[in-house]
């Protein structure tokens, strides 16, 4: 494999020094076989600029920490191979989320707030009996829930969403998908009206303008288009009944 020389254009901003304007800094790195952006960014930090901030945790495409704009596209840095990119690589932090510095954004706070606002937990009046057998569920239902639950909260769908970029409280496709996950779950005893209260608004499902950037950007391939349609249908009906 011919070894290329890569030029990284990386967004730099440190909230600790607000007087210093955001800027793009250039780093040059020799490409190696099998190099991912995880490897490249660590090399840059360890060998060229030890102040560079970015977030990786699992480095395996599982935890959702490393979403960023890679040549303009929101995606996971850890599973992006440099060989699939041109020699000039531009890295920017995801928009919408609070910027913590350089490529690091506060997705954690955003997603927690979304979970609170959508009350993203099983609502039930039943109590747990440690001596009883578990309640049955069909495997099909379980897989259906899992399909929605696979979201890793990386924020790529949010970063690329036109509505989320202009409306700070819009819960985005990830938020709608989270609600769909509980709607599908027979253990959750909320009725449609109760769901309407958490997503039946302009900050919820009715804020979505349906251009489907989210669906294209989801790195785990959650069928967001279908989930948005499902929740919209249910909530439109529930809205009628009000």
């Amino acid at each position, binding site marked *: 494999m011919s070894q290329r020389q890569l030029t990284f254009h990386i967004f730099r901003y*440190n*909230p*600790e*020094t607000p007087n210093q304007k955001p800027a793009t800094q250039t780093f040059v790195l020799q490409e*190696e*076989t*099998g190099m*991912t952006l*995880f*490897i490249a960014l660590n090399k840059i*930090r*360890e060998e060229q600029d*030890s*102040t560079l*901030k970015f977030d990786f*945790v*699992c*480095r*395996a495409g*599982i*935890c*959702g*920490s490393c979403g960023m704009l890679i040549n303009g596209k929101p995606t996971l840095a*850890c*599973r992006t*191979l440099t060989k699939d990119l041109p020699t000039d690589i531009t890295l920017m932090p995801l928009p919408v989320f609070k910027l*913590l*510095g350089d490529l690091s954004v506060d997705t*954690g*706070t955003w*997603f*927690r707030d979304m*979970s*609170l606002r959508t*009350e*993203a*937990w*099983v609502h039930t009046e*039943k109590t*747990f009996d*440690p001596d009883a*057998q*578990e*309640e*049955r*569920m*069909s*495997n099909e*239902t*379980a*897989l259906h*829930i*899992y399909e929605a*639950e*696979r979201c*890793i*909260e990386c924020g790529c769908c949010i970063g690329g969403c036109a509505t989320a970029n202009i409306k700070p409280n819009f819960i985005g496709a990830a938020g709608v998908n989270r609600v769909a996950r509980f709607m599908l*779950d027979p*253990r*959750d005893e909320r009725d449609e009206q109760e769901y309407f209260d958490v997503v039946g608004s302009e900050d919820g499902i009715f804020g979505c303008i349906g251009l489907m950037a989210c669906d294209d950007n989801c790195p785990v391939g959650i069928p967001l288009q279908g989930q948005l349609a499902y929740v919209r249908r249910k909530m439109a009906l529930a809205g009628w009944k009000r």
Partner: protein
Amino acid sequence: MSQYDRFTSDVLIVGAGLAGERAAIEAATQGLNVIILSLVPPRRSHSSAAQGGMQAALGNSAMGKGDSPDIHFADTVKGSDWGCDQDVARLFAEMAPVAMRQMAYWGVPWSRVVPGKRIYDGVDIHEDPEKEGLIAARNFGGTAKWRTCYTADGTGHTVLYTMDSVVIKLGITVHDRTEVLSLIHDGERCSGVVARCLRTGNLRVYTAKSTVIATGGYGRLYGASTNAIINEGSGMFVALETGVVPLGNMEAVQFHPTGIVPTWILITEGARGDGGYLLDKDHHRFMPDYEPKKKELASRDVVSRRIMQHIRKGYGVESPYGAHVWLDIRHLGEKHINTNLREIANICRNFAGVDPVHDLIPVRPTQHYSMGGIRTNIDGMAYGLTGLFSLGEAACWDMHGFNRLGGNSLAETVVAGMLIGDKIAKYTKEASLNVSSALIEEHVRFQEDRIQSLIECRNGKENVYQLRREMETILSENVGIFRSEEPLQKAVAQLHELHQRSCQVGLRSGGKGADPELASALRITGMIKLAYCIAAGALARKESRGSHFREDYPKRDDENWLKRTLAYWPVGADRPELDYEPVKITELPPGDRGYGEASTGAASANR
């Protein structure tokens, strides 16, 4: 007076993985005020990465029929190579089914029993229609029955998300991007922690009646690890640095044969199970030379050992990331690879840029799990300090002994969280918080001073990343899968020197605010101390047990070594001190493990 924010709670939990969150829920539902700290948002914790599953003897699946806590207990003890405390293993096996059912009640979409017939590995399996819709189980090595509960390929993800949804529902306070630097204690009682905010770099003080360490494993001491990059053992070294809390069995380190090079992501056993081969640099299939009967499917620690043996003989493939071997699944064909081995194929394509349909996969044995950790009693109380608890991978509770069985670790986090969480709650209700401000001030000043001297390069200009790479290399080369006197001595000597050099680290970055180099620099000495405990423990233990394999002492030696290592690091000392205690044997006397090369301490599945 120093400037810092101060927070107080009844219970302070350090770590928002499954273990920490489950304990937090238990304490909070008993009416206590709880704060959880975490380096990262809870759902990013390493627990989310576990795909395989968690063991509990529910016995719903056809291949789990007749399973019981008794059998689960026996598997766990054998798996541990009799290194575990049997009263703990018993408690664990009894409670695991309840813990799984509770997770189902909270919302985990467990895979469920589907009635009917299917073929697995040439065997007909008939699922019982009576059991339809109950929690299903899959096969994991080292177990007599199929008892590993799972959700498709995302067990850790779904269980952690569900657990965290309960934490959110209960309104438990979580401070993420917060790193604990040290424990506040007076040599007898632990009263909280000094932490650093990773958003601003500011120091904070958290005081509590009880402090709980659930910070996960230390995989990242070995550069090549399947663990998340935040698994740096910081909870373990803050406990060790008190001088009075010992770490148990640090030399017990588990390796998995096939981590993909160079990102060390786990390639599951499925690849070899379905007929994948291991090849050397000459494309020679070498496993049959060593293990004519089981070949690639010998137990995981055996395969790991053989790969390293072969690489050492000079048959490894050189790469910028060190020597490796190849995993070849090309002969299985495109259809099989893209359907039955889809996850593996995706990992290969996304992370190594190779297509296993046409290319060889570069693999090498990789650190995977830390059996050792903060030594606690059966109630989760750490030795040495009252008010300090530990659980999960950070702890040596000790149900894993010298080898953890696949699926037993996730199960441990939830079971221990439930049981130890209850003990924490009981303890806390009786306890009071009285910690002098002078003591707090002393601990804060110590950290402030450390930070200042790193920034000013007061003690030298050692490069933290350089030291870290040296530590990783020392461990990987000398305290790996094969161990023997000479390399271990070398490792101890080199780590001794490295420890001293780590006191001379200086920053290049200026260390302002949430500077990442400062964060690494604050960790390096503690990490090297852990590495030292691992190497020193391995040097002292002159036998082979579970994952600890001494070439010069290839047999298990119950007469002299049926005991647990306790590593202490007295304050101001320049090396660890080792002590020992017997393991608790209540039901199952030491015997043959009944699989693998029993005499050489072969282990079983360790996903």
